[in-house]
């Protein structure tokens, strides 16, 4: 009698890493290696399908998984509402990472493509979808080719019930918004639409459309294998599991890390090698996020509830430590200029308001303009909540948090003109804007 030695899947042993388990490379983990690491895709046989689809949604709901794309909506509830909607559902995995300060979706897709594709397959099964898309930015040609190859390998091995279609969307900030991707797939331009109708009720082809971030789907792939209790064994009770964070700024090893939810921001910065110089402020949540004073942020547990209660934003897990020698006002003014240029050009208050807001912030940062403080606040009020999508709201939130976090600088800039920090190399990445430095 021979005893077959089945290697224990890595993900079952350790609480972290889960999504990033396996070799520490950026090379894509192939199908065989993926199955050795995590086990095969747990799709049930055709006979038991309807019942087990409901059970899979139950398990995901019990796991407490929330969306990792920024909004943090309970994933199980979204699956249930799409599964119960009128019409044959469609699954859309959002891998179009529009946020310049985020790198986690790209890393996950390039390193663990089959984890994401497993998640898409399972989500399609759970809601009864007959089509599934994975959307990427069109200019990510290499990533697209590697995902095509991964999908090809799965088709050859007969793994998925439906073929996962990889689609490239125009590479703009607002084109990664879910209604923009849906409108693009429907043959229109890749810009957001007015709601209702909402995507989960009437999306692609007028059918209920489940839109999930690729990290969320990768978590589904592991929950389907190991269960909801396993998922909750990491993180904290009100915010279970792990999440990918992108750490940047004055840390020794900027990059993407998988952390347990509830880990204090300071500990995350230590994971990224620790501070290389004193930090004055921490950007949480990215360019739609908020600045928090470094001493407040340091102790803050990374959960949506804690970060929001402190006036911050969890967003898609972006943490940028701003060095004390930088100027927070000029950093924010640069980002606002970028966001103003990224408007879809559809809604008047966003088209006219964001450039005006960017101008006012630039005056404050670079000229020390005396009256613009009040002007910035007034403009924030004029753009917030007045677009079809959340683009103006996110920009307004960032600008408002800058006035609060850098209030001493606002006064200093007005009284003595711009500080030395405006001459420092910018910390926050802006696509195509680092050439001067």
């Amino acid at each position, binding site marked *: 009698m021979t005893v077959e030695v089945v290697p224990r899947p890595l993900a079952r042993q350790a609480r972290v890493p889960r999504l990033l388990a396996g070799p520490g490379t950026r090379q894509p983990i192939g199908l065989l290696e993926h199955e050795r690491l995590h086990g095969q895709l747990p799709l049930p046989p055709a006979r038991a399908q309807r019942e087990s689809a409901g059970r899979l949604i139950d398990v995901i709901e019990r796991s407490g998984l929330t969306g990792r794309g920024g909004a943090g909506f309970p994933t199980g509830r979204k699956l249930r509402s799409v599964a119960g909607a009128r019409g044959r559902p469609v699954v859309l995995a959002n891998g179009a990472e529009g946020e310049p300060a985020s790198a986690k979706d790209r890393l996950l897709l390039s390193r663990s493509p089959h984890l994401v594709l497993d998640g898409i397959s399972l989500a399609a099964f759970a809601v009864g979808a007959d089509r599934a898309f994975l959307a990427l930015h069109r200019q990510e040609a290499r990533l697209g080719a590697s995902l095509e190859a991964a999908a090809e390998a799965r088709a050859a091995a007969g793994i998925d019930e439906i073929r996962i279609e990889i689609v490239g969307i125009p590479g703009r900030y607002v084109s990664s918004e879910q209604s923009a991707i849906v409108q693009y797939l429907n043959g229109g331009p890749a810009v957001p*639409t*007015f709601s209702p109708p909402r995507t989960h009720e009437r999306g692609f082809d007028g059918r209920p459309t489940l839109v999930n971030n690729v990290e969320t789907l990768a978590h589904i792939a592991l929950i389907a294998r190991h269960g909801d209790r396993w998922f909750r064994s990491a993180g904290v009770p009100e915010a279970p599991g792990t999440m990918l964070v992108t750490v940047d700024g004055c840390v020794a090893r900027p990059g993407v890390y998988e952390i347990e939810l509830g880990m204090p921001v300071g500990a995350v910065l230590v994971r990224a090698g620790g501070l290389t110089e004193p930090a004055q402020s921490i950007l949480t949540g990215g360019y739609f996020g908020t600045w928090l004073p470094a001493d407040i942020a340091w102790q803050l547990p990374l959960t949506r509830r804690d970060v929001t209660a402190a006036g911050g934003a969890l967003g898609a897990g972006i943490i940028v430590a701003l060095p004390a020698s930088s100027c927070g006002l000029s950093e924010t003014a640069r980002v606002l200029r970028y966001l103003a240029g990224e408007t879809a050009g559809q*809604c*008047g*208050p*966003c088209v006219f308001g964001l450039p005006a807001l960017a101008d006012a912030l630039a005056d404050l940062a670079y000229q020390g303009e005396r009256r613009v403080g009040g002007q910035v606040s007034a403009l924030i009020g004029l753009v917030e909540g*007045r677009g*079809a999508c959340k683009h103006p709201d996110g920009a307004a939130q960032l600008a408002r948090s800058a006035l609060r976090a850098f209030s001493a600088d606002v006064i200093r800039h007005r009284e003595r003109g711009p500080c030395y920090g405006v001459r420092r190399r910018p910390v926050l990445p802006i696509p195509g804007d680092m050439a001067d430095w």
Partner: protein
Amino acid sequence: MLRRPAAAGPADPWGHGGLVSEILRVNPIACTAHGICAELLPEAIQLDPWGYPIVMPGELTGEMLSNARRAVASCPALALVLEKERA
């Protein structure tokens, strides 16, 4: 947003027991800043510095509601909508 609770009673076309109010909303994609809504309904709509409407919070009273319907009907861009919503 403007809300007006509809009277409860036998006429309950939406079947919500009278818990329906009507909300004035601007579709910001369709709106091209004609400004006619602010002329017809100045008590509820103001224009921002670029000429786009800002809907003031407050209740839609009987006369305002009929003015609101007129403003909705007069928008050349069909960007102003009255939406029924459960209170």
